[in-house]
């Protein structure tokens, strides 16, 4: 039956043909196997489809900003990005007041707010994330590690709404009494709360990076007479730095995009200021707080989807860089992890 499978190598081409064992006769796989396997492939492509659909459908809702006359009458890209002299203001300012008699869609208060919260969270999360990764991978005894590591990973499992709740109800009060903040909810409280969500990301990847450093590096350094701290600072850290950088990049992506924590603990006041003790309003919190109350298809709705597109593109870029760094590190260190 499977004539073409049996097709022998022509005897003239090989002198050893006679020495070969007889070919195994296998029934060909049923046709439906091929169909199912093709189906697997299609399903696997769904991740690609999902990313594409996400971009297409949020950009689609933001697109009228560029062509719709009715919306451009209210808001244009220039009005969003450049300071405007609004009636009642003494000088040109970027103001976010989407629900007022004259809707104002200046994005800078939101971008500055996002940056402030992100800076605070990264300033806390990087030292604590990398530090605890260093401890767990280099100093902790195996038994300690088996307890500490899952516990820190458990921190990653805390829903962000619970962290937001904790920041809003508990941390904000403490911080106010410690530092005397004028506004209870501000960039510091939300940034520190956000860092609790970011630390496990940085920890996991840094710990993996530390442990992926070949033993021979450490041994060589020790053999040259370096003390342990010298080995860690001059050998281990540089060798693990791509992995740490990847962890920091993914943590940064998480910090910029995280919504519930900042929505609940940042105070949500769109203010342009350099003071970290002021209330802030981030891009993500703005979308979450305002989208439920807008009319579909109106200027405000369109602008919120535009902000969403910005957020998507920013995190996409950061994650791509982070992911690329991880891959390169794994290839370089021979996939030790």
């Amino acid at each position, binding site marked *: 039956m499977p004539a073409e499978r049996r097709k022998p190598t022509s005897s003239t081409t090989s002198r050893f043909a006679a020495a070969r064992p007889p070919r195994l006769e296998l029934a060909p*796989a049923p046709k439906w196997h091929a169909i199912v*396997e093709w189906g*697997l*492939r299609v*399903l*696997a*492509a*769904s*991740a690609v489809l*999902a*990313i594409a659909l*996400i971009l297409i*459908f*949020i950009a689609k*809702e933001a697109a009228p900003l560029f062509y719709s006359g009715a919306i451009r009458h209210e808001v244009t890209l220039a009005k969003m990005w450049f300071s405007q002299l609004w009636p009642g203001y003494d000088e040109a300012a970027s103001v976010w007041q989407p629900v007022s008699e004259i809707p104002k869609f200046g994005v800078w208060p939101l971008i500055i707010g996002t940056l402030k919260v992100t800076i605070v969270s990264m300033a806390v999360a990087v*030292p*604590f994330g*990398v*530090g*605890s990764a*260093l*401890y767990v991978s280099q*100093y902790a005894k195996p038994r300690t590690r088996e307890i*500490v590591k899952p*516990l*820190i*990973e*458990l*921190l990653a*499992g*805390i*829903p962000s*709404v*619970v962290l*937001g*709740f*904790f920041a*809003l109800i508990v941390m904000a009060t403490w911080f106010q009494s410690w530092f005397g903040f004028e506004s209870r909810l501000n960039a510091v409280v939300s940034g520190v709360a956000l860092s609790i969500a970011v630390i496990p990301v940085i920890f996991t990847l840094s710990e993996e990076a530390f442990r992926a450093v070949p033993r021979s590096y450490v041994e060589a350094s020790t053999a040259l007479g370096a*003390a342990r*701290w*010298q080995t860690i*600072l001059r050998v281990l850290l540089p060798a693990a730095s791509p992995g740490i950088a990847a962890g920091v990049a993914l943590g940064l*992506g998480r910090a910029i*995009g*995280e*919504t*519930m924590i900042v929505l*609940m603990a940042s105070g949500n006041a769109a203010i342009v200021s350099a003071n970290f003790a002021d209330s802030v309003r981030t891009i*993500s919190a703005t*979308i979450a707080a305002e*989208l*439920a109350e807008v009319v*579909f298809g109106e200027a405000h709705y369109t602008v919120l989807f535009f902000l*969403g597109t910005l*957020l*998507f593109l920013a*995190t*996409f870029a950061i*994650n791509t860089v982070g*992911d690329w760094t991880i891959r390169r590190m794994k290839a370089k260190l021979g996939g030790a992890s």
Partner: protein
Amino acid sequence: MTVAGSAPRAPRRTSAQRVLVRTMSNRLGDAAMALSSGFAALVVLAILLLILFDVVRNGVSHLSITFLTEAPKEGMTAGGIFPAIVGMVEMVLLMTVAGVPVGVATAVYLHEYAPAEARLTRLIRIAVANLAGVPSIVFGLFGLGFFVQFVGAGIDKVFFHGDKVYGQPALIWAALTMAVLTLPVVIVATEEALRAVPRELREASLALGATKFQTVMHVVVPQASAGILTGMILAVSRGAGEVAPILFTGAAYFLPHLPKGLSSQFMTPSYHVYVLATQSPDVDATKPILYSTVLVLLALTFILNIAAIVVRARVRRQSGLQH
């Protein structure tokens, strides 16, 4: 003018002294390094314990069986969270049914079939990694723009003569949005489990004359089932805790009744926490309920996460892989 070399100077240290100084400074450096890194780990653990302690201490008092089986009463200042629990279970079940098969299929394709260097393979891997990093609020926008406004409104146009049935926030759209969000979780866990299945098993199966597909279905996937379970548990835990993706796709502040079908809105403990914490007119009156809701949510996610850790540890031990 004296020559530099002839100037009087401190007596040279003996070599023994130099060794002593160096040992001391190295000891100091080592101690500082160990202490500071240990301090970092300690603080991180302290934060975890602090949150747990605060939530348990304040949440336990109001927790009871009736809290889990009653609906909210008197403007959410009394009663329980029964509708929220039911809503969450329904949403998570739908999400699992929709998302896990796709995630498992993707992982099976990536690990068992895909040629490592093919463009499609690389594209899928990049997509999965990026999908995991998309902010949850963007998933919310996507769910609204795609599922509610496009798919839902399309269904209404075709089947309901334009009446709003599916073209509005609903259980099914929230569940599907969450299924997309948790897809990377399932894929990553499944692929790790597939990687742990020994080559020999596949080869033995192929050598017995099984086709590739039979090998995958009857040997590889069953061997990896614990890992697939891990992915499922983690996905459920994530789905139960996320709020931002369901803000505009189906979650309701308050419903006097349970969800009636796929097209009705629903309550869920995670969104309930947000509502109680920020929208309540009487913060002090809702506080005990708020804490108890947080406790329920936290207990649920911790139990799920610990279960996942235990299952994964078992898988790793069995496969003898070092991670």
